[in-house]
C-alpha cells in the first residue's frame, strides 16, 4: 500500500518495512480553496498585505493524495496538475520549501 504521509506501521497490514517510491509529477485536483486569512509565517517580504494563497488537495495515479499550495487562482475540480518545487513559508525563523502544484496548460 502506498501512503503519504509516512506512518510507522502500514495502514493496511501493520508491517514496518517500507520503501520510498516516486509518485511522478502529474496529478488531478480534488478540491481547493482561496485562503484570505493566512497564518503567521506566510507573510511576503516587502509586501504589506500579501494576496490570498491558493491551497488544494491533489490525487496521484494509484489514489495517493497530497495537500499543498497552488500556483494559480484559475483552477477547477478535476483539473490536471503537476508538482513544482518552491518556497512555502517560514516556521519560526526557518524557511520551508516543498512541492506546490500548477495547472497543466
Amino acid at each position, binding site marked *: 500500500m502506498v501512503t503519504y*504521509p509516512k506512518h510507522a506501521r502500514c495502514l493496511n497490514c501493520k508491517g514496518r518495512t517500507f520503501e520510498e517510491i516516486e509518485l511522478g509529477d502529474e496529478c488531478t485536483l480534488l478540491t481547493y480553496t482561496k485562503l484570505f486569512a493566512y497564518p503567521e509565517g506566510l507573510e511576503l517580504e516587502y509586501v504589506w498585505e500579501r494576496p490570498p494563497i491558493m491551497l488544494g488537495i491533489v490525487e496521484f495515479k494509484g489514489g495517493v493524495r497530497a495537500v499543498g499550495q497552488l500556483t494559480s487562482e484559475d483552477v477547477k475540480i478535476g483539473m490536471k496538475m503537476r508538482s513544482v518545487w518552491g518556497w512555502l513559508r517560514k516556521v519560526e525563523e526557518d524557511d520551508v520549501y516543498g512541492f506546490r502544484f500548477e495547472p497543466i496548460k
Partner: protein
Amino acid sequence: MREVAIIGCGMTKFGYLEGKGLMDLLTEASLNALDDAGTGDKDFDAVYVSNVAGGELSHQRAIASGLVDRLNLFPAAADRVENGPASGGSAVKNAFLAVASGINNLVLVVGGEKMMATPRARMTDAIATIAHPVEYLHGVTLPALAAMFARLYMHRYGVTRKHLAMVTVKNHTNALKNPYAHEHTPISVESILEEATMVSDPLTAYDCCPTSDGAAALVLCPAEKAREFCDTPVRVAGFGQGTDRHAVHEREDPTILNALRVASQRAFKMANLKPKDIDVVELHDAFTILEIAQSEDAGFFAKGQGHKALEEGVTAIDGKLPINPSGGLNARGHALGATGVAQIVEQTRQLRGDAEGIQVSGASRAYCCSFGGFGNNVVVHILERAG
C-alpha cells in the same frame, strides 16, 4: 460499572472578557458549578481541566494544579486534558470513567480558554498546529481544511452557500436568547451572501465560528448519590470516542467523518438508544459545513441529506430535531478547551428544563459531539434526564 450523574453545572459568558485571565475564567465557572451542585465544603476526589493552549496563549501551564490551589480543593487528584478542540469532551469522559469505575465519588470537570488577547494571525497559526505537519507546513489552517471539505461537499451533494448561510442564521437566531452567547447579532441569509468577508473561499467570516474567551464546568457523582445534592440530576447514558487519519487528504472518502461515525455508534450502543430517541443535539459547528456533515455522520440523517433537513426546518429550535439551540460554536462561541464542556452544560440545562429562552420543550435525551482536529478525534456523549 456504576451509573454516573451530573449534579451541577456552570459557565461564564463566552466572548471578549477583558480583564479576566484564564485562571479567573476557570475559577468563575467552577464556583458556579459547585454552587449549583450544592456540594458546600465537601472534598472532591478529582479535578479534570480541559485546556488547549494555556502555555502558548496565557503563559500558564499545568493549570489543573493551579486551579486546585485557587479553589482550595486539596488534596484532589488534578489533571489537565489536552485533546485539541475535543479536549472538553475528553475531560468529561475522563471524569465519567473515574466515577463509573468506582474509584472517585465527587469529580469536577472544567474547561476554559483565553483566546481574544492574542493577535489573529498568531492565533490562526497556533490552532493550525493541530493539523498534520504535511498539512501545516503548506500553510493549511483549520478554516482552509473546512473550506476544501465544503467545496467537495457542495460538488458532491448539492449543498450551496445558501445552505451554509442558513446554518449561521439559525444558530445566530438561537443565540439571541442565550445570555452566555458570544454573538448577539441578528443576521440574514441575504446579507451573508452579499456582504460577508471571505475567510477561505467558499467560507465567509459567518461560516467560521468566533474564537472566544470562556469557561464551563460540571460536577459529577454516582447516580445513586445524586439526589442528595439535586432534585433534577442528569444521567450520562453513554459515551463513545473514535479516531481517524490525521491528514484529511488521506481519508478514503474525505467527506465522511468516520471518527464521528464510530464515536456515535459506540455512544448509542452504550446508552441502548437510537438516533430517533434523541430530543436535542449540540454539534461542533466550528464551520457551518460541519453542522450539516455531522448531522449525517452522527446518524440523524442519511449522507447528503443534512442540508435538506436544515432547509425543511427539522433542525430549528421548534423543529423535530433541534440542533444547536444554544447557538452552537457559530454563535454561542468557541473557547477551545471550554467548548466540549459548555455543550454538556447547555444540554444539562435543557434536560433540567432550565434553559430559559432556548428551552426545547419536553427534552429528555440529549446528544453532544465534541470534535477534535479536523474530525480525527471525536467524543460523543448522550445524556438523559434521570427518571
